[in-house]
Structures are given as C-alpha cells and as structure tokens.
C-alpha cells in the first residue's frame, strides 16, 4: 500500500486523516509543520504527499515549491473551499490535485489512488517511444525527452501529456480531461486543467506564449498538435 506523508497543523485533522488512512492500509507518517515535513521526506520516502495549504511558518505553497525543486513526488493539497486564490497558487506551484476539507476518508483515498494510478496504456502495436516534433515520449518508461534532454514532469503533467498525445489533433474538453486524467467528476474544477496545461507548456514548449504541442481551442478545450 502507498506510503503517505501528511503535513497538517491541526492535531484533530492530522489524527483523523491518519486514523482513516491507516485503517485502509496506508503507511502514514505525519508532520505538523512544513519544516518537519520536508525533513521527514528524505527519511520516510513517501509515494505521495498530502499537504495542508494553511500552515504556520512555512506555508503549503512554499513547501510545494521546495518539493518540486528536486522531486516529481505526487502532491495533493488539502484546502478549505473558498480559499480559491490559494488553490490556484498551489496548483501553479506544482500540486497535482486538491481535496476540499472536510472530506471523508473514502474521498481522500480515491483521490490518492487516482493520482498514483498509471495512465492506461492505449495498447496495440505502438512503438515504445513515440516522437512528436522534438518530443520523445516513452509510454513504457513514462519519460519524456525534448531534443534528447530528459524533462522532469509532475505526475499530472505526464498523464495529461500522455493522454493528449495518444490522440493527436483530437480536441478534449476540460471536463473530459478532468474525468480521464484526474478522475474527477465531469463537473470538477477546470482550473486544475488550466494550471496543469500552463505548467506543462512551460516545460515542453519553445515559446509557452504561442504553444505548438498543447494548443487551445477557445470554447472547446485542448488538443495535441497539429505540429507543422
């Protein structure tokens, strides 16, 4: 079962979530502050980070940025709805998903599973490595390189790229992407998609302002290519 590091300052939430997840068989380590959490990271080597946004001292967004400097560890933010602004900042900082508190353990666990799930291989006689322009996408090894240089993509970014480039030039609405990549309901928060697209463009596009790979179709959604 996945190893989860929970960084949460409120003792009751920390204890409740820990109890719930542990009951479902997760190996849970908790930390009350961002600093403690970062320290536990190296030693505990979790599969996923559950991160409260409102932390005393170093806040969740700062922790998220610090983690992303060196690692593509899946990160789910814990937030209170209404802290809309924080959600956007957290997503821009590299979080893969977020959960609104209060949440039942089954919801938290479903989200953890979704983020950790590997994107389903479209199967068939595809080559191990696909080339799209300067991008080399290795579906088996789950790596992406541009001009031979390895790109560090967070889990949500990688899944989004794999999903889009599996059907080049096909348009996906943001609701569809939310369902397929994030396993959210159709009516989820489309800002997840937008923030992830922005981050992905910063990593794979030559000019993020005029993208070649991830193109926007105003009013409809996103598509991969066409590359010309």
């Amino acid at each position, binding site marked *: 079962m996945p190893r989860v590091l929970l960084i949460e300052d*409120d003792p*009751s*939430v*920390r*204890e*409740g*979530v820990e*109890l*719930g997840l542990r*009951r479902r068989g997760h190996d849970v380590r908790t930390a009350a502050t961002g600093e403690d959490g970062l320290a536990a990271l190296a030693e505990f080597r979790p599969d996923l980070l559950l991160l409260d946004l409102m932390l005393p001292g170093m806040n969740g967004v700062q922790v998220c940025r610090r983690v992303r400097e060196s690692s593509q560890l899946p990160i789910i933010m814990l937030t*209170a*709805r*209404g802290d*809309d602004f924080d959600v956007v900042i957290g997503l821009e900082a590299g979080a893969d998903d977020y959960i609104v*508190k*209060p*949440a*039942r*353990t*089954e919801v*938290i666990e479903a989200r953890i599973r979704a983020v950790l799930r590997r994107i389903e291989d479209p199967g068939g006689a595809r080559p191990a490595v696909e080339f799209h322009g300067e991008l080399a996408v290795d579906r088996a090894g789950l790596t992406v390189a541009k001009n031979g240089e390895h790109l560090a993509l967070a889990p949500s970014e990688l899944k989004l790229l794999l999903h889009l480039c599996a059907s080049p030039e096909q348009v996906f*609405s*943001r*609701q569809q992407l939310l369902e397929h990549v994030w396993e959210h*309901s*159709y*009516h*989820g*928060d*489309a*800002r997840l998609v937008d923030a992830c697209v922005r981050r992905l463009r910063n990593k794979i596009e030559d000019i993020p302002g005029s993208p070649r790979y991830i193109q926007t179709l105003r*009013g*409809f959604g996103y598509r991969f290519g066409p590359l010309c």
Partner: protein
Amino acid sequence: MLISGLRTRLVLAFLLVAAVGCGTTAALTYREARNAILEQAQDTAVSSFRDQIQELHLNLPPNNEQMQGMVRGLARQGKPRNWWVYVEYGSVRISSGTNPTSTVITPELRRQARGTPHGSFQRVVKNGEPYLTVVVPVVFKTAQTGTGGQTVRPTGLTFYAVMQLTDEQANIDAMVVAARDGALPALAIALVPALLAARSVLRPVRDLRQAARSLGRGRLDTRIPVKGGGELSELARTFNESTAALERSVDELQRAEARARRFASDVSHELRTPLAGMLAVTELLDEDAAGLDPDTAAAVRLISNETGKLAVLVEDLMEISRFDARAAELNTDEVDAAETIRRTLQSRHWTDPAEIVLDLPDGIRARLDPRRFDVVIANLVGNALRHGRPPVTVGLRAESLAQDPADGAGGVALWLVTEVADRGPGIPPDVLPHVFDRFYKADQARTRSAGSGLGLAITLENVRLHGGTVRAANGPDGGAVFAVEIPLTASEVTA
C-alpha cells in the same frame, strides 16, 4: 396640451404677468384718451348746436320755407365739423341733406328729446361709420309770477344734427395701434428677464434633480452646494441633512449586516476544522460499530450520520457566506448544456426513466460554470424527487426573451431555459414566495428537512451569479415547475 416643464411654466407665467400689465395700462390709457377725444367733440357739438338754435328767431307755427332757411343756416355753421341738420315739426320733416330725415337718429334719441329740454346726444355706429347725433327741442320759457322760477313748454319743433366722427375714430384707432405696437415689443423684451429668472430658479432645481438621481443610484455621499439663503438653499440644506442621515443609517445597517455575515462565515470556518477530523474517522466508526454492544453501536452510528449531515450543512453555510461576501467566483467554460445536465443526473444515479423524463436537445452550447450549474440542476431535481411525485421532467431550450428593460438595451436576447417539473401536489401559494428563502420550512411541524435547508437559496445564488433568474411556479396540471433562465449570446446555438 399639458404644460409640464417648469421652465416653460415659469416663462409663460412671467409673460402672462407682463401681458396683463401691458394690456391693463394700454386699456386704461386708451379708455381715458378715447373719452377725452369723444367728449371734446360731442361737448363742442352739443353746446354750439344749442346756442345756435337759441339764437334763431322763430314764429310759431313755422312755415316750411322758414324752416328750410333755418336748416340751411344751421348746416353751414357745423362745429367742430360739418353736420347735417334735420328739423321735425308735427309731421313735417325738413333737412339740409337730400333725405328729409336721417336713418341714424334712433327712437331712443327721439324719446330723450322729449324728456330733456336742454338737448341730448347719442353716439351711433351705422354701417361701420361712427356718428354723433344731437337733438335739441325748441321750448317756450315763461317766467312764473311769484315763484321766480321758469316753466318750460315744448313747442313741438325739434332740431337734429348728425355729425360724422370719422376723424375722431381715426385718432382712436391710431391709439390702439400705438398701444399694440408698444405692448408687443415690451412682451418680447420681457421674455429675456423671464428666461434669465427661469434659469436662475431652475439651476438649483436641476442640481437637486441630479443629486436625487445620484442618490438613487446608491451614491449616498451626494451633497448639494448650499449658496446664500432663501427657500431653495433651505431645500438644499434639508436635502443634505437627510442624505447624511440616510448615509449614516445605511452605513450602520451595512456594518451590522457585515458583522452578522462575518459571524456566520467565521462560525462555519471554525466548525470546519473539527469536522474535518471527525468526518475522516466516521468510516472507522461505521465499520467497528458491528462489534460493539447494541446501544454503543447505535450511539456510534448516530454520531457518524450526524457528522456527515453537519459537514453538508457547514459546507452549504460556507457557500452562502461566500455569496454574501461576494467572494463567489464564476469559472465558466463553454459546454454543451444537455451533456452537462445528463452528467449531473448520471453522477447521482438519477437515470430511471420511470422517475426522470428528459427533453434535452443537443447542440446548445453555453458559457457556464459546470460545477455551479451541476449544483443548480442537482438541487432542483433532488428537490423534485424528494417533495414531488415522479416522473420528474427536465427540459432544456434556447429561447428569445425580452430583455429586462433595467439592463438598458431593452432588446431581445437569447436565454438558456432549463425547466424541472414534477407531478406532485405543487407548492402551496403561501409558500411559493418563500421557496428560495434560507432555512424556510414549508411545514412548521417538520423540524428538519432532508437537506441543509439552504439548497434552493444556493441554487438561486448560483443562477444569479450566471446573470440569470430562477422562478418557482405551479404547472397547469399541478406539480411544481422550476425554471432557470441564463443568458446566452446568439453565437452559442450551433444546432
């Protein structure tokens, strides 16, 4: 025509006063001058005619030649102008003109001639020509012995003089023309001070109107500059005092309301953290309840259930607080409206065709916040399933509706209309105006509804955030009908 403009009324009143002034002056002057002219003419005529007749030497009864001579003599001495002279004696009629008698002499004058031995006169207008007619009867005067008085006896001989007053009339006409020619420019000149006065009176009125309008737009800090004294500045001062008082009380109300809302928001926030911990362990309680003794198990399940409801209630309270604080954001996306509704129903497993009848044409694309629209549809359908009777009909259409005239354009715009209707008993008329109220309980005996009591209030707020409206009504064959109207732009229908 109704004259409603204050400026027009002021100018008209001013002109009316000027006209009455001019007219009265002119009329009085005219009357006095006319009288003076006419009196002078008639006095001269009457007195000279009488004098001349008194100087006549008469033998009675006069013969015709003698009278003919007298008439000719008198006609030559007309004063101040020529006159025609007529004499009557019994049935004898003699004149200086061609006709023996004049048509201008009225029976009334003849009557007067008998009553007044000194003679009398009358002004007559005949065929538009003014005439002066004078009558002098010839009388005997005999001194009465003893009394020193005189007795007067008529001789039956009566002299008439008829004089044209054309020249006098011309003078009088000239005066009328002069009065008119003087009054009209005077009126025209009066227009200038009238306009000036109207302007100076109307400026504070205009200021007041602008200030009142600005006040109506919600600018409660509107004040009017107060200049000098007088009624209008008194009015301005009163206006300022009233707006200041209004601003103070509105401020106070707003502060109180903001405090109340912040309190509700703070309470929900504070409740959320302990709830987050509790909600995370409810599953654990549910699972383990089976192994506990029955009472403890029931208690544990109760806590678990109520924690879940409390979490929904707090979440709804938070949502309402955000609307109240205007912190609710609309994250719109262009979506297919029918697809969005279908997904909402699917995700809640409301797919039984015996319960839900769909009338959802594809191809209507709308800019919606999918999450908020999902809440709207889910609340309305959930409400219909809970309180109404199946089947619940969900209909969708794009419709041209007259725009709210308050929006300014007043034209016709395209709206996305979503209708949710059930076959239940409908909503009682006394409840209908309150269905969107927070925590409104249609049945006072029912202590708590299945939902948080905020569902329809949140629905209303979500629709408003989209710039739309939601209405509740009863359908023609019973059953509640909720209609959600959200504005579309014309380009958004592609079907």
